[in-house]
Structure formats: C-alpha cells, structure tokens
C-alpha cells in the first residue's frame, strides 16, 4: 500500500516537474495577492498584525483551490481516475496518494509565500509556531480539497464546482487557522491559542476519517 501511495506521489511530482503548470500558476497568484494587499492596505504595525493572518489564509485558500483544480484537470485529461482505480489495491490508496501530492505542492508554495508575506507585511510568519499552524491548516485543506475534487471530477462544470463545494466546507478550518495565526503574531504561545489549534487538529482528523470512509463510494458513483 505504501509503495502505491509513493507511486502516485512520485507520478504527480514528475508530471509537475515536466510542466511546472501547477506551481507556476499558484506562485503567480500568491505573489500577485501579496503585492496587491501590501500596497492596498497599510500593513505595518498593529494593523498589519491584525489583517495579515486573514490575508495570508485567503491567499493560501485561493492558491490551494487553483492547485487542486489543475491537479484534478490533469487526472481528467488522462481519463479521470479510472486508471488509478484499476491499478490500486484499495481506493484509499488513491485518496492518500492524491492528498499527499496536493499537500506537497501547497507546502512548496508556502515555502515561498511565508517569507514573501513576512517581507511585505512586516510581520514574522517564519517562526516554528506559525509554520506548525500553516502545516495543520494545509493538511485539512488538502484533505477536504482532494475528496471534493474527486466528486467534482465527474461533474460538467468541474473547475467551477470545486471552489463552490470546497470553500464553504473549509470555513471552520480557515477560522481556526486565522485566529491561531493572529494570536501567535500578537505574541501568544501555542498553549494560549490551544483551542484554535485543537479545532485544526480535530478538523484534520475528522476530514481524513470522512474522506477515507467515503472515497470509494465517491469514485465509484
């Protein structure tokens, strides 16, 4: 099972290495969003600390949707996920492999986004506690996004359908992530924003469990 998950991850990364379609689209969007917000709003000092987490997570959410849509389109061009369904021992393998590859692409983007946002917003996002929140939030986003991408892949307006389905579902995750990030930027410790961190952890666990339990029905429908 682990070999199959690794094969899906390696396949997606190899395809991305050839084209750089997903990362370049996500990077252009993220850089444009950060630049636009930094020039449109005065994000220095207290205002920056208050607004920057929202700006950061909005950027992550929309770049993530962009990446998921393209990842989904790549599977669609090859004939949906029928090939993966034929070759995998278990449908869960497909979900975990695709979720991991979406997660890796989002994390790669965030490696660029966090320092960029630190420079333009004059707020230090590059610290372990904030990175932990970003990783927790991204895990939940990639998990929910992969499940919904599998639903959207069989719909007629799939690239429109994905954000319509996904964004309302990730509202709790985004609320938790924004509040936790804001608290950390204000100087609180991880323990002091523990309730928001718990929301992120519980969301990640619930979404993973729901996705694993329902994925085979979704793809065979």
């Amino acid at each position, binding site marked *: 099972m682990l070999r199959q998950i690794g094969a899906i991850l390696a*396949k997606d990364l190899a395809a991305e290495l050839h084209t750089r379609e997903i990362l370049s689209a996500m990077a252009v969007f993220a850089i444009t969003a950060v630049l636009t917000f930094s020039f449109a709003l005065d994000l220095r000092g207290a205002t920056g600390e208050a607004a920057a987490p929202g700006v950061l997570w909005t950027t992550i959410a929309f770049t993530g949707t962009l990446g998921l849509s393209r990842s989904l389109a*790549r599977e669609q*061009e090859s004939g949906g996920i029928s*090939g993966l369904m034929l070759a995998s021992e278990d449908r869960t393998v497909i979900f975990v492999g695709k979720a991991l590859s979406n997660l890796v692409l989002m994390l790669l983007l965030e490696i660029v986004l966090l320092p960029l946002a630190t420079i333009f917003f004059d707020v230090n996002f590059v610290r372990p506690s904030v990175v932990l929140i970003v990783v927790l939030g991204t895990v939940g986003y990639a998990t929910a996004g992969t499940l919904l991408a599998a639903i959207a892949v069989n719909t007629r307006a799939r690239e429109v359908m994905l954000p319509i389905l996904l964004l309302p579902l990730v509202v709790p995750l985004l609320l938790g992530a924004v509040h936790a990030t804001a608290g950390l930027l204000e100087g609180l410790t991880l323990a002091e924003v523990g309730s928001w961190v718990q929301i992120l952890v519980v969301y990640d666990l619930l979404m993973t469990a729901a996705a694993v339990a329902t994925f085979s029905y979704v793809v065979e429908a």
Partner: protein
Amino acid sequence: MIEVRGLRKSFGSRTALDDVSLSVADRERVMLVGPNGAGKTTLLRILATLGRPSAGSVLIDGRDPFREWAKVRASIGFLSHQTLLYGDLSARQNLRFYARMYQVEDADARIDELLRRVDLHQRQDDLVRGYSRGMQQRLAVARAVLHGPTVLLLDEPYSGLDPIASESLTRLLDGLADDGCTLLLTSHRPVAEGRLFDRVVALNRGRVVHDGAFGDPRTFADRYRSWVGAAEAA
C-alpha cells in the same frame, strides 16, 4: 473466465443494462457489438470494477471482483477509449508508474519488452502528449497488459484510429490472444477487425439480442442490422 448473471444497471430512471447474462471462456475472443447507448461501456466498466451493478452477479476466474478486488485486479487489463495515460509523462514514466501500482516484478525488463512490442522504444522518453492517437493507443495496450492479465477488456479500441493504426492494433491484439489472453472487445459498428473473433454478442437497449459464432465476416453487417434493427445500426 468471465461469468455474468442477471446483470442490471440503472442510472436514475434510465436502465442501461437489463438482465444481461454472458459467459466468456478462457482464451476466447468475443466481440460485443451494439449501437451507441446499448450498454456496452457500462458492462465493460462493471467487469473492470469501475462501476457497481444495481443487481446481478459477476465472477472473474471464479471470484467476485467487488469482494476480492485485490486478487482479481491482477487478472484484468482494461483499455478504454480514453487511454488512461498521463500526457505530462513520457511513455516509460507512464509504464513505470503503472508497474509500481501493479507491483510488477522486474519492471524495467517488462517495460523494455512491451515498448519494443508496441514499437515505441525509440520514442520512450518523449512526452505522451506529443504522440499520435495511434501511438497513444499502442502505449495504452502496453499499459493494459503490463501486469500480465489473462482477461483483456477493450472498449472501442479502434475509435479514432486510421487504417494503418487499426491494422497495427489488430496485430498487437492478435499476438496477445495467441499468448493466451481472453479478449472481450466492444464496438458500436461492425469492424473489419472482426476476423479476430470467435464469437459475437450483440447488445441493444441494455439487453443481449444475439449470442453466437462470429461467422462469415462478409455477411456480418447484414446480420448486425437484423439483430439491432436497421435504424439503430445506421
């Protein structure tokens, strides 16, 4: 061996398959014909476990594929009218990916053998998106048989191929059948490649309307019209 009994598949109020029963013996070459919408693709997708039946049973080599998929998948190869190949990967990368998924032993040697067999070894490192339709279809055959299946399900494999590519595909399928592969191929029209087949099953509106020997290929078009009706056959 494939055993289908009383298979029924509905999509909402529309019945795609209605009480379909069919047996395909080992090494048999069966063509499944019928007009568009007859239920051929639905049947093949169920046999390949890409869709679940509403009622009825399927056995492949005596196993229920929906209960024992991990064991059954090794014996099924599926070629759809979509190639199930990744255009952003080379031919070799596509086959290596599927080899890892199917856990093929000595994968590099097997990939080399298949790339030569489908005559793509000289273009193996090119991205698949640059291949012609015929080349993609040959590579798709290599993908479908990579893990050494005993049953090959082919859904409209000749669709979109020019005569030269069709002939090349026929030679390939003939070779696979000679190696012991059971072939079940769908077509929405009588095709010249029918000479490959021992038996023909005609589907119309989700029901089996004929099941018998392939017979004389020269009279096949007339017989086909009599099974499915002149209007449907047109």
